[in-house]
């Protein structure tokens, strides 16, 4: 069995294949239902269709960052400092950054249709944008040179600092907007009257994106392990080569 899998994908198992197939199915349903089957919204018209990809990706992005924070804390607290926590934190953050980018892009497209503007200085939007930049920085810290343990320690500490930072950013932005009257931004998904099919499609979106998230994180995390192992084996070879160099002298 593993031989067959080996040929198709290096990091796949039966579980990921099932998850992957389910994800494709659900996502196909979301696209069909979101674009064709669901009705227009009374207020927003056709543009409400963006909701079916925008809202789930925002959800998943936030979920991903929560996972990163929990995994980083686990790495710091656990006595063994298992690298699995670190790889999970990194994989989750990478997928989270991607979903957050999707959220920001689809959000601004939706905003252009509903508000007539690509961007509004609404607290939620602003916090999301800051969150995005923060985790891009987190990923940059992960790429700094050093050993696997150094990467894990540094990035775990930075992830914990991000947890401190996010509420402060959010609170300051909320306070900032609330003091500036007249800037009450209408909440796009707030005034949508949803019928059963719309609700079901949105729910399917959340399920589908979650499946995609799980699939991506599993593969990404395993790929990280592969790269780490390959580096370690490269190190073995380098040690052997250096030992020969040493004994010749």
């Amino acid at each position, binding site marked *: 069995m*593993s031989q067959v*899998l*080996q040929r198709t*994908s*290096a*990091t796949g*198992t039966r579980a990921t294949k099932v998850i992957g197939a389910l994800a494709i199915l659900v*996502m196909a349903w979301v*696209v069909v239902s*979101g*674009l064709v089957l669901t009705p227009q919204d009374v207020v927003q*018209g*056709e*543009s409400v*269709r*963006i909701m079916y*990809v*925008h809202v789930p*990706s925002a959800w998943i992005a936030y979920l991903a960052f929560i996972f990163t924070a929990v995994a980083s804390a686990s790495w710091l607290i656990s006595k063994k400092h298992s690298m699995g926590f670190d790889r999970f934190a990194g994989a989750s953050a990478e*997928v989270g950054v*991607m979903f957050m*980018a*999707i959220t920001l*892009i*689809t959000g601004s*497209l*939706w905003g*252009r*249709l509903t508000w007539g503007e690509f961007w509004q200085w609404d607290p939620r939007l602003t916090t999301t944008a800051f969150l995005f930049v923060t985790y891009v920085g987190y990923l940059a810290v992960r790429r700094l040179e050093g050993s696997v343990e150094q990467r894990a320690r540094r990035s775990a500490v930075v992830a914990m600092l991000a947890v401190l930072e996010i509420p402060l950013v959010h609170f300051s932005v909320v306070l900032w907007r609330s003091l500036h009257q007249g800037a009450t931004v209408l909440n796009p998904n707030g005034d949508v009257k949803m019928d059963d099919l719309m609700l079901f499609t949105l729910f399917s979106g959340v399920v589908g994106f979650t499946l*995609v998230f799980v*699939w*991506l994180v*599993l*593969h*990404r995390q*395993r*790929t990280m*392990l*592969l*790269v780490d*192992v*390959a580096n370690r*084996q*490269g190190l073995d070879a380098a040690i052997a080569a250096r030992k020969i160099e040493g004994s010749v002298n």
Partner: protein
Amino acid sequence: MKDAGFIFGSYIVTLGAILMFAVATLRRAKDSSQSVDEKDKTWL
């Protein structure tokens, strides 16, 4: 359907990004997989 471009655009961006991420991950996995021993692939 004057908004069609925006709506299709957001679906394409979403699915495209996910697909690109998935392909990039699988490709990277394949690249580093050859040199790695089966016993290190703890998920198999």
